[in-house]
């Protein structure tokens, strides 16, 4: 940003002490509201169609791999724990521990995606995917259940990927020292995003695996 040298001395009202911490947090929470409504559209479709086809949704959920789903839930919950630890560590000035915890979070995220890949691959090899002949021959409730499964876990997976990339960038910032014990709002906001992605999964898991 272009700043006149003579205006440098003027302190902006909301910027005493450099970065506007509260402002950045407000911005992130507002963004999470938009994410909530974005996923809200999908959950709305799910509720409408499940109310229309309860039996098919019940049967569809039995096709899901409960073991892999449970493992993934554990993985993601643990990753929320590690990112919280990363923030706690940087606030105490422990840069090494924070970087270690951030890396662990990324690993958990990747682990989640790999497990998800095997779940998807198993379904696709069985011939179940949107617009597949096998699926189109099933009932309308089944088509909707599996389409919703692929779309919702798919879009959630993209969010996990974005989160992992964001944490990787934060990792570089922490390594370079621009994220430190005095300036950590970017890491904290990334953490908020990661928790949000986690919470979405907390709802997806029962809706697709446990409604049997």
């Amino acid at each position, binding site marked *: 940003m*272009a700043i006149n040298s003579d205006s440098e001395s003027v302190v902006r009202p909301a910027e005493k002490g450099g970065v506007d911490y509260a402002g950045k947090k407000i911005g992130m929470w507002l*963004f999470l509201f938009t994410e909530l409504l974005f996923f809200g559209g999908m959950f*709305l479709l799910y509720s409408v169609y499940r109310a229309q086809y309860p039996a098919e949704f019940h049967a569809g959920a039995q096709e899901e791999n409960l073991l892999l789903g449970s493992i993934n839930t554990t993985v993601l919950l643990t990753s929320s724990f590690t990112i919280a630890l990363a923030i706690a560590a940087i606030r105490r000035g422990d840069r090494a521990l924070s970087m270690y915890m951030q890396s662990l979070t990324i690993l958990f995220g990747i682990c989640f995606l790999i497990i998800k890949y095997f779940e998807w691959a198993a379904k696709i090899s069985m011939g179940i995917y949107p617009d597949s002949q096998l699926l189109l021959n099933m009932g309308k409730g089944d088509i*909707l259940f599996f389409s919703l499964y692929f779309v919702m876990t798919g879009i959630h997976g993209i969010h996990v990927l974005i989160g992992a990339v964001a944490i990787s960038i934060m990792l570089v910032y922490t390594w370079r020292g621009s994220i430190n014990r005095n300036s950590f709002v970017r890491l904290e906001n990334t953490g908020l995003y990661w928790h949000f992605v986690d919470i979405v999964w907390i709802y997806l898991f029962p809706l697709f695996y446990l409604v049997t």
Partner: protein
Amino acid sequence: MTEARADDMAQQEPSFYHEHGRYRGVFAWLMSTDHKRIGLMYLGALLSFFSVGVLLGVLIRLSLIAPGMVLNAQQYNEVFTVHGIIQIFLFIIPGIPVAFGNFFLPIMIGARDVAFPRLNRLTLWLYLAGAAIVLLSLFIKGEPPDTGWTFYAPYSIQTKANVSLAVLGVFVLGFSSIFTGLNFVTTIHRMRAPGMGWFRLPLFVWTLYATGWVQILATPVLAITLVFIILGRIFGVGFFDPSKGGDPILYEHLFWAYSHPAVYIMVLPAMGIISEVMPTFARHRIFGYKAIVYSALGIATVGYFVWGHHMFTSGMSDTARIVFSFITFLVAVPSGVKVFNWVATLYKGSIQVDSPLLFALSFIFLFSIGGLTGLIIGSLAPNLHVHGTYFIVAHFHYVMFGGVGFAIFAGLHYWFPKMFGRMFSEKVAKTGWAFLFVGFNVLYFSMFILGYQGMPRRYFEPPPQYHGWSVVSTIGSWLLAVGIIIIFSNLIRSLFKGPKASSNPWGGRTLEWSISSPPPAENFTEIPVIKEGFYGNK
């Protein structure tokens, strides 16, 4: 007067036009994070798209009086679709917030920039990218979209036209809109000058605040809906396709759950401009500051719950229809409150009839017609008769163009001296206004009559009994186009040849009039301390 102006010139600082940062030429603009430069780039893009949209509109009118001679049926579908997409998504939804909001919001609250300047620049890039994608859908192999701007399923999933690309463009534009809203809300919370309490905020800022929340809370619903359209076309996901168990009515619900609040994204900031222009030219404090604030918040809140009135004939339970109709009547109340506020502001004022006021008064008149006819179609029984007729087309053009469009022209003339440091010819501006106002009413009031008589919208070849008023309407479109040409050529000429503007040519009282025209690079050498409200309120 001349002395005062000379004084004014003497203390003028170098404007933001001279502060180009690290880059030169076009990059001094594209890479800039200065809210004023971003606002002007948006303004330029918006008005260009608006002009294209108007041309397409004139083409539609022309085709309607001589079907088949100008356009064939498929081209006609494409032209009215593209007219809608351009005017709605590229012009009027981003409209006032991105152009005037970007330029004036920080100045009006006494800040040097928005809360997230780089995010602000990103919104501009997203807007340009979205616009480019939409335009690409017109020119690459295949046909331009022909679904109407609403992309109703299941046709939007089945048609061979380039709907995926157009929808993707709108999706990207949505991100631009979300980030602008998020940025403005944070800015208003965090960047106000010392002493600028909530009830000292200029009214334009209040409406931007309400708009910001609507952008944040409504746009994502459209985004996910459009994703479903794209998934439907590419992967065959059938959420809105009855043959795969989907429900096309659900598409309409999701679409209007965004697109009705979007009406308030357009109208609220327009009301903000009117609330600034009226007290300035009436030379009188605004009547009922708090009523205007609360009614803006009321519109933003209640406006979420009326979307069903777009679907009265689509298939909904009677209960749902009655509830939606009732809430539609409710949302008219705060709009009515504002109209009375503006009119009462004129009372005992010392009114100076300059072009911004003419546009503002036209706004009140045309928006009232648009709003009142909205109540006719918001009640269930008349709706059955006029749904899908030209009555609807007339209604929303009165609200969108007669309302928001005229407010944009009011703002354009009101803030032109501040943005460009030049005055325009008042006489030519008034001539342009007269053509626009008369042309507008001839064009769209005829449509009320046509619609009432039963002429269906979107028909390529209307039944012959509607020909007479159709011709009248088309003649109106020419008058309107002449008005727009006069207005734009006046402003473009004034950019280069207009006399230098003083810092406060209209006698405005908000902060933007306290700094030089055009403003210096960081707006204020010293952040002002606010001691009282700007409209004579405490």
